[in-house]
């Protein structure tokens, strides 16, 4: 067993432990949360969904094991190339993608934005490393960094506001950590706001961004009262949010037990947006919510440890960016689940079902493990 672990589980053991715990939790949760969804979608047979989920997790694990052996220096080059691939895929998706809830996010069964997230973070990390000395200069250092961020996020934005916003925020925080001055960061925020208002105005005039109305209604339904919420989509959101609140209240400290959640049966997207509410209902605030929060925060902490210890600056930016993205996603999903934030459609990393999102999460973790692995090996050499 020890040998086996030594052979396959490189890198930070704590991260491995967290990942394995999360995967196991995910399998249990999926079994209980999927049954209702599966019933809705199929003829009452829940197991296929669950098997698919487990199979995806196993595939993800294989990816992780493979990626930790990968020669790290290649990642920088991959980013340089990948940014073009991701950009073109996003462009193609925007034009021809499959329309789910009037959101064109899918092409060939996966969301290119999942790929774009990783690639952009790698690319920004690469640029931060290259432009290290010119970082104080706006024109020479900061502007070349902002350009790819704006471009990629801009391509994601029409179909998926929350992902674009999240990815933009992560890149922004990377710039912050990368040493961009506060003055320049303020300018970036100002620019982003102006750009966003400009987009809304364009939509008001031309209507070329159908999702903008959805964002508006989501905001309205979250911040406004039900009287203001006029259209059916925001009513459904409200309904779901109330159901989720009921589920959370229903959970108590130790929960109703796996599969026993009653509110789940009425919560539409028990699978993705409100999976956290279901978890709280079935496993309670203590076993469900606290454990998950702890796991994600510990994961972030261990990743930061890698960030600070690793020799290569590129590696440290990558580890920080990827782990921050994952944890931010997790917290945003949880925030939605407990009605702290408006509905976003962000999955809970490793837990929510949905094939490609799990695979890309595993790839991210694999890269982080690779970085931490470099530290460990260095240590043992010394």
């Amino acid at each position, binding site marked *: 067993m020890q040998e086996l672990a030594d052979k396959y589980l490189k890198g930070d053991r704590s991260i491995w432990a967290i990942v394995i715990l999360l995967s196991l939790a995910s399998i249990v949760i999926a079994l209980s949360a999927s049954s209702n969804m599966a019933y*809705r979608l199929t*003829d*009452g047979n829940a197991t296929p969904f669950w098997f698919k989920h487990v199979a995806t997790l196993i595939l993800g694990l294989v990816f992780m094991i493979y990626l930790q052996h990968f020669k790290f220096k290649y990642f920088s080059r991959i980013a340089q190339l990948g940014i073009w691939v991701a950009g073109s895929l996003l462009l193609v998706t925007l034009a021809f993608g499959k329309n789910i*809830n009037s959101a064109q996010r899918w092409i060939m069964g996966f969301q290119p934005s999942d790929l774009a997230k990783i690639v952009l973070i790698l690319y920004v990390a690469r640029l931060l490393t290259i432009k290290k000395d010119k970082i104080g200069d706006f024109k020479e250092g900061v502007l070349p960094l902002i350009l790819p961020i704006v471009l990629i996020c801009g391509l994601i934005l029409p179909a998926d506001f929350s992902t674009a916003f999240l990815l933009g925020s992560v890149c922004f*925080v990377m710039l*912050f*950590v*990368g*040493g961009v001055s506060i003055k320049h960061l303020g300018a970036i925020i100002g620019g982003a706001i102006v750009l966003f208002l400009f987009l809304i105005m364009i939509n008001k005039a031309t209507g070329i961004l159908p999702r903008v109305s959805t964002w508006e209604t989501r905001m309205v339904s979250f911040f406004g009262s*039900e009287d203001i919420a006029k259209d*059916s989509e925001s*009513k*459904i959101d*409200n*309904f779901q949010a*109330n*159901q989720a*609140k*009921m589920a*959370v*209240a*229903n*959970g*108590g*400290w130790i929960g109703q037990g796996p599969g026993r959640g009653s509110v789940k049966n*009425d919560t*539409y997207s028990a699978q993705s947006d409100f999976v956290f509410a279901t978890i*709280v209902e079935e496993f309670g*605030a203590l076993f469900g*919510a*606290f454990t998950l*929060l702890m796991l*994600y*925060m510990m994961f*972030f*902490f261990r990743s*930061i440890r890698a*960030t*600070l210890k*690793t020799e290569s*600056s590129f590696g*440290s930016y990558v580890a*920080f960016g990827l782990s*921050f993205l994952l*944890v*931010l996603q997790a*917290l945003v999903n*949880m*925030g939605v689940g*407990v*009605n*702290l934030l408006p509905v976003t459609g962000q999955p809970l990393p490793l837990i929510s079902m949905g094939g490609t999102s799990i695979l890309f999460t595993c790839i991210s973790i694999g890269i982080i493990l690779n970085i931490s692995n470099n530290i460990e090996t260095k240590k043992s050499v010394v």
Partner: protein
Amino acid sequence: MKEKKQIVRVYVVYIGMLVFAVAIFSRIVFLQLMGGGELSAMVEESTVKLVKIDAPRGNIFADNEHKTALALSVPRYDIYMDLVSVDDKVFDKEIVALSDSLARLFKDKSAFDWEQNLRNAKIKKSRYFPIKKDVNHIQLQKIENFPIYNLGQFKGGFIKLPKTKRIPPYGALARRTIGYYKPLTATSKEYKVGLEGAFNDYLEGQNGELLMEKIIGDDWRPIPSSSNKEPIPGKDIYTTIDINIQDVAHDALMNQMIEQNAQKGCAILMEVETGYIKAIANLTNDTVNHVFKESFNHAVGLASEPGSTFKLASLMVALDDGKIRITDSVNMPGKYCFYETCLHDSRVGGYGKNTIQYAFEVSSNVISKIINDNYASTPQLFVDGLKDIGLHKKLGLKIPGEGSPVIKDASDNSFSGISLPWMAIGYEVQQTPLQTLTLYNAVANNGVMVKPQFVKEIRDGNKVIETFGPEVMNFAICKESTLKDVQSMLAGVVERGTAKNIKARGFDIAGKTGTAKIAENGTYSNKYQASFVGYFPASKPKYTCIVVIQGPTKQIYGSLVSGTVFKEIADKVYASGLENTRDQSEELLATMSYPYSKNGSKEELKTVFKKMNVPVKDNASQSAYVITNTNDKHVLMGSKVIPGGLVPNVIGMGLTDALFILESQGLVVKVIGSGVVKNQSLNPGTKLNKGKLIILDLI
């Protein structure tokens, strides 16, 4: 990362995330402290709700071309009253009139009682006072026009809750075999009875879900959403039950049960070749109310000691083992003792010296001695013989509650010195009536034992999704020669044996009587089980039938008590020549190029014809219901005008369509017979009075 500024910034980010996580956890704690009460109030007031839409349950049909329904779902209403919303003045002014109307409509309470109850409810400020359950559409229309209620829900406090109710159009006929299904609820467990229970998974369909939003008052409107789910209607069950034979069997059994004032009884008719059950009647004496009811499926569930009908199996084993020949001579002194216990023949002094065949025909208990003489040293050999036939196994019916047969092994603790001879004549063994019938059916079917079946097909609308053909349980229950022997002995029972009294004219019956004492609480009581099981026509068997009656009070013998019921059923089945009519109608159909069709719903007929590539000429542009006319070129559809205020013409329609049209016009429908409507008691086109009774003759 080595720069201090950067390290600080990383920790700043981490602390930020920590704050976020704490906020999430605090929010959970806040929601939980806020408690369910306030939240559920919020959900209650919500203008959006998820509504379950019940899927229509599938129907259960009898076996004929006319889709005669044995069980179908109809709309019914539960009526409640919200007395708070009725204005006090209006209430005082109209309460007498309302009570009077209610009393006249329901007839179960006096106007005075109604008034008392309603006044009390008004004082108690009841918002949900139950008026009446299971009100049908016609009654509903009347109630809606009653004083106070005609003011509607908000001023008149009138609350109606629509629901669907399962009704058996043929009342008690095969009631227990059709059965019922009650889902699991908070207060009761799940009940699965008969076909409704056995095929519930098919019948129930899948409920749908619909997101609804409130518009005004208490009106809800569906919201289009991708998560809405249409209900999937249940599948229809096409049984093997022939409603005409069922009617005959039910009546014949009922008459005898009344005549004998018996405890319980059943009659089953099975098609020899297929094992299809054409009729199954079960009656139990309800001694409290002095009526006979279909309240237990004795045919399927009652495992009891069969008595003499079991002698067939005993002799089959002995014949197969070559221990005896039916021509062997035996002495029948009338008393056969094993250890201390003696068995007696029903004729005092016995039957003298004669063949084994004769002994069987007169049902002499010498058979116990024959079996004992041959197997006393190897009793397990005899038991194995019975098991080879398959008598120790359940039939494996889909209907729940099949009784377990008992065939003891020689090694069993309860297998005593007298077990062997007693088993030989049908004691210390147990079989259900249906199990015994299955054995006799195998004899009629040249040794091939087929499983009794109640369902022919399951259909989704008009599409057949599952068929149940004959299912062979044992390809040869005995040797060819044994089969010939037992067949001739069974014919002899009616020809010259214990069942001479049921000898029929025109066709031969072969069978066996059985008269057994009923064991109660471990000892034999003075009650008897009289049975007759056999097949007809003996030369070319078409049907097998068993009649078992327990606890008759006038006579005890199988031939007299049950044999006569058997004969009545066989006579009517044979006389009505059911198989002949079918052949004729098939011939008739074969001469036409396009199929004959019943009148009915236009859209449904069109769909069917389109599937079958039959050209249709539609002359009925406006009507939902059409009259069909088949000629060489096409099927002509004429308008079936269903004028308001006049009695519609439903002649030529199937029962389901006719019921729908007539009930929707407010008529009370009574059905006689099965098949298509041949005659209606109210002439078409005459003035329609709601609530009037219309009798439909079906053929």
